[in-house]
């Protein structure tokens, strides 16, 4: 919904200087965005500036003796943290797998819901359910269902002979992160479903039918006609969700707190630890600034790529 407005050429371009009317319109435009700007300044810009400023300061609540300008000390300290790379990698894995899974499930469910079948409304309602369950509640419930000794999932898997013995999904080094990803997909894919369904419903039937008459098979029609029409909405959804997933904190914290032994620790978890467990706001701010930097870099790269493509 949002990412492409930047490269779209402005609707009316006037080469000559601003007319009186144009000036007036400009005033209206700025007045219209004013409330949002005020909110933004007080609640986003101010904290953001604080974070950037603090990242160059020694600021540790536990050690007030050490304060003042730190230069890049916080940054080097954070980067040399034993688990920094691990957390960075986990963030990438967490984000990529979550968003990929959400997209695939969203696409399949949207297609299924787009078929003309009975009970469509009921299914559509059911699929929205995960999205409205509060994260804390969902996290606690899943954690319980996944435990080895009194969790229903393990019990069933063992009864069905899919597993020989219960697995502690959230307690093993190699399954913890993937399990949280699985639950995160469960929670977030309905948003994809709705958006993609909306996109599908606006796919022109005429074109699809015309292609069918020309002899294009189901698969061909899907890949060459339907998917390209979903491109915009897909890209938008993926873009938003990459951001949201990368900065997501609640799910991992509720389910594993980043453990066992940092195997599901992502950058936001690490930021939280620095801030609320070590009270080292300097380090926390530096890590947050780094993360912001990474994401902005990705954003710029993405932006350049789309602009280039559009020019071609």
């Amino acid at each position, binding site marked *: *919904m*949002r990412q492409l407005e*930047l490269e779209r050429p402005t*609707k*009316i*371009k006037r080469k000559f200087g601003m007319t009186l009317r144009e000036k007036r319109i400009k005033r*209206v*435009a*700025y007045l*219209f*965005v004013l409330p*949002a*700007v005020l*909110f933004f300044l*007080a609640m986003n*810009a*101010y*904290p953001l500036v604080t974070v950037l400023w603090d990242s160059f300061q020694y600021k540790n609540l536990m050690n007030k003796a050490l304060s003042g300008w730190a230069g890049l000390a916080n940054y080097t300290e954070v980067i040399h943290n034993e688990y920094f790379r691990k957390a960075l990698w986990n963030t990438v894995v967490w984000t990529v797998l979550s968003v990929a899974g959400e997209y695939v499930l969203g696409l*399949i*469910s949207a297609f*299924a819901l787009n*078929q003309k079948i009975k009970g469509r409304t009921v299914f559509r*309602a*059911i*699929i*929205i*359910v*995960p999205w*409205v*369950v*509060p*994260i*804390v*509640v969902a996290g*606690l*419930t899943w954690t319980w*269902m996944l435990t080895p000794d*009194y*969790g*229903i999932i393990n019990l069933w898997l063992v009864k069905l002979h899919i597993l020989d013995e219960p697995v502690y999904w959230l307690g093993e080094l190699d399954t913890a992160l993937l399990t949280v990803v699985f639950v995160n997909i469960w929670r977030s894919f309905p948003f994809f479903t*709705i*958006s993609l*369904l909306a*996109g599908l*419903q606006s796919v022109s039937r005429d074109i*699809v039918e015309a292609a*069918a008459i020309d002899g294009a098979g189901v698969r061909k029609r899907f890949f060459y006609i339907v998917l390209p029409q979903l491109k*915009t909405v897909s890209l938008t959804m993926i873009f*938003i969700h990459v*951001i949201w997933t990368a*900065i997501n*904190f*609640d799910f991992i914290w509720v389910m594993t707190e980043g453990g066992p032994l940092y195997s599901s620790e992502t950058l*936001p978890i690490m*930021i939280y630890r620095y801030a*609320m467990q070590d009270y080292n706001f300097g380090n*926390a*701010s530096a890590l*947050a600034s780094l993360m912001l930097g990474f994401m*902005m870099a990705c954003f710029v790269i993405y932006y350049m790529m789309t602009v280039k493509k559009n020019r071609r």
Partner: protein
Amino acid sequence: MLISRGKQRFLTILTYVVLLGFSVYCLFPFLWMVVTSLKPDAEIRTVDPSFWISTPTFKHFDNVLNNSKFLTFFKNSLMIASITTVASLLISIFTGYALSRYGRFRGVKLFSVAMLLSQMIPGVLLLIPLYLVMKNLGLINTYASLILAYTTFTVPLCTFMMKSFFDSIPIEMEESAEIDGCTRVGIIFRILLPVSLPSLVATSLFAFLNAWNEFMFGFVFINDEAHRTLTPGISLFKGLYQTDWGSLMASSVLSVLPIVILFVFLQKFLVEGMTAGAVKG
């Protein structure tokens, strides 16, 4: 005919199978919540968990409704989420309109990028600075603190949603109205908004849901039960050394159900509303 009859039947069956699979996946934890809330304590945490309830009880619902402040929390959440929705909608209608129609001005464009960037700040990091802001405004422990915070969080996405809806409305419609002497605000409210009603519903649902489910700020900004919201309220059943699972699940069910019902009724608008914006992106 696009596909042969046999293929059509196969496709229908496949669709049902897929949808049933999704239903199980989506409902499984929710059903578990419902079942747990109806079980007596002795059946909740056992070595042999099952969906079967041998002696169903409404004890936990009774406990939640009569012995806890659940209804207060519910009322608070309802109020905060509603005001947040109205506020973010009003703000984002104007901002979205400006972004859609006046994107040519550098200031407006810059602001849209800034809003996008603001989405990249991890919420954890805002906790302490925002607490300070609220304290300086004397708003700690008020509904206003949460309304302000939630509005800030929802405005960017609502704005982008509204922008894309406005994008999909041909500018000619406005031009004719303008000739008829409508003011700009008049145009928005009399001409554009009625056309994009489904989109408005979709956007408000989104804002409402966000405010309804938020946890961390709700807990940190609010100090007393009279102002506490639902999600932090529910988590109070997670006690010190043991969790009252029955009541926790009962209260979760009670807090999720109204939203589910709301969505079921409004889902037609939801998809329609998104359709309007989706094509244009």
